[in-house]
Structure formats: C-alpha cells, structure tokens
C-alpha cells in the first residue's frame, strides 16, 4: 500500500513541476517576444495594413530588392526574399496587396541579423508584393508584381 502511495505522490509532484515549468515558459515568452500585431494582421486593405505597422506613407527606395517570380504557377507557395541595403535595417514587412489580409509577415532584426529574409507565402491572385523596411525610425518600401496562375488561399 505504502509503495502505491509513494508512487502516487511522486506522480503528483512531477505533474506540478511540469505545470510550473510551463507557466514560467509562458511568462518568459510574454516578456521577450514582440507583441503579435493583431490590428496589422487583421487589416483588409493595403492602406490600413501600412498604417497599422506604423508606415502610412513609406518612401520608395531602390535599396530594397524583392526576389520573387514574375509568374507563380501555384499561389499556395510563392517564394519571396527581401534584401535591404539600407543601413541599420530594423524591420522588414512583407505584404501581398490583394490578399484577404494583406500583411503576411513582419521580421524584427537585431544583434547582427542581416537585412535579409527569405520565406514562402500564399497569394490569392495576381498582385503587387510590397516590402516595407524600417531603418533609423523611418519607413521605406519597394514593390514587385507577381502573376498567379492558380490562387492559394482556398
């Protein structure tokens, strides 16, 4: 009997430890992670999305290069890379203008991260892709049209 009791107590103890570790993990992440930009990601048109990332009227820049195909066969997987040659690039955002929710991603760069990100996004239809770069507290942008043969938002 006492053996059973001991193992039961041990089990309760380890569950409590796990739960405490889980809570500590969550608390830590809340402190260090950037807040998910709900307003930005729920924006339905480009102007609103730009405003909600703080970049209402970004200046066009030739120092931002968007690498994406001219024509994408499959809108579900469109490779997009953004290179910013603007000094002190702090943030890169990727926006697909005609998606139901245009803002696709925001990347905060720090501690030696270069002004370069590469990912793959879904595009509902042919649209401009915008790259918005924050550097030295100012916003800059570039855009590139990608033609979509089959949409990828369904």
């Amino acid at each position: 009997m006492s053996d059973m009791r001991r193992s039961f107590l041990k089990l309760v103890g380890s569950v409590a430890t796990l739960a405490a570790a889980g809570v500590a993990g969550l608390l830590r992440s809340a402190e260090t992670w950037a807040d998910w930009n709900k307003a930005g990601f729920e924006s339905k048109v480009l102007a609103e999305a730009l405003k909600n990332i703080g970049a209402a009227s970004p200046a066009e820049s030739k120092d931002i290069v968007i690498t994406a195909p001219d024509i994408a066969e499959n809108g579900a997987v469109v490779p997009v890379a953004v290179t910013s040659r603007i000094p002190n690039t702090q943030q890169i955002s990727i926006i697909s203008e005609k998606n139901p929710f245009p803002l696709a991603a925001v990347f905060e760069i720090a501690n030696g991260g270069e002004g370069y990100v590469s990912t793959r996004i879904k595009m509902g239809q042919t649209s401009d892709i915008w790259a918005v770069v924050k550097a030295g507290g100012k916003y800059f942008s570039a855009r590139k049209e990608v033609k979509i043969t089959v949409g990828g938002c369904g």
Partner: protein
Amino acid sequence: MSEPMKIRATQQGDAADVRILMLHPMETGQRRDAKGEIVPLHFIQSVMITHNGRTVLDAQWSQAVSRNPFLGLRIKGTKPGDKISVTWVDNKGDKRTDDATVAAS
C-alpha cells in the same frame, strides 16, 4: 506533438546562412475539408531565432505564410560551432524549439 524542424546553418565568410523548415499545416481558416466544413484557423504566429542566446530575428506571421514554412536569414559575426536556436508558437499556443550549430563551409 509537432515534428522537429530542419535547420541548416553554414558559415559563409564572417556570416552564417541559416535555412529553417518548419512542419505546420498553416490553415487559413478559409479552406473546407472533404465534408464541406471549414478547417479552423491554425498557423504559426511568432518565430524567434537566437545566436548564442541573443535574439537576431523575431518574426510575426499571418496565415498567409505557406504550409510547412521556410525561413532563410543571415547572421553577421558568427563562427563555426556557434549555437542557433529556433522557437515557434502557433495561434493555439503550441510551441516548439530546435537547435543547430553553425557548420564550417
């Protein structure tokens, strides 16, 4: 539980080229399953990448990032053997961390 990420970090000059492949459905909340029912929104919202414990990239994503997300970045001032750690959190609170070391090119 989620599947491990594939992380490749290679030293190139004084920087590391890092490529990450995460395994996640990235559901848009607009797709219907075989029974015609909407598949609920399920996507990675945040990704954090650290180099020897210091955050180098903190990403916020929408459901528009493709299924099984790919992320490529470059980190300056790395050396072979340095530790790269990647953590993602999705909109249901699921979380996963995987590590890699920078390989000499």
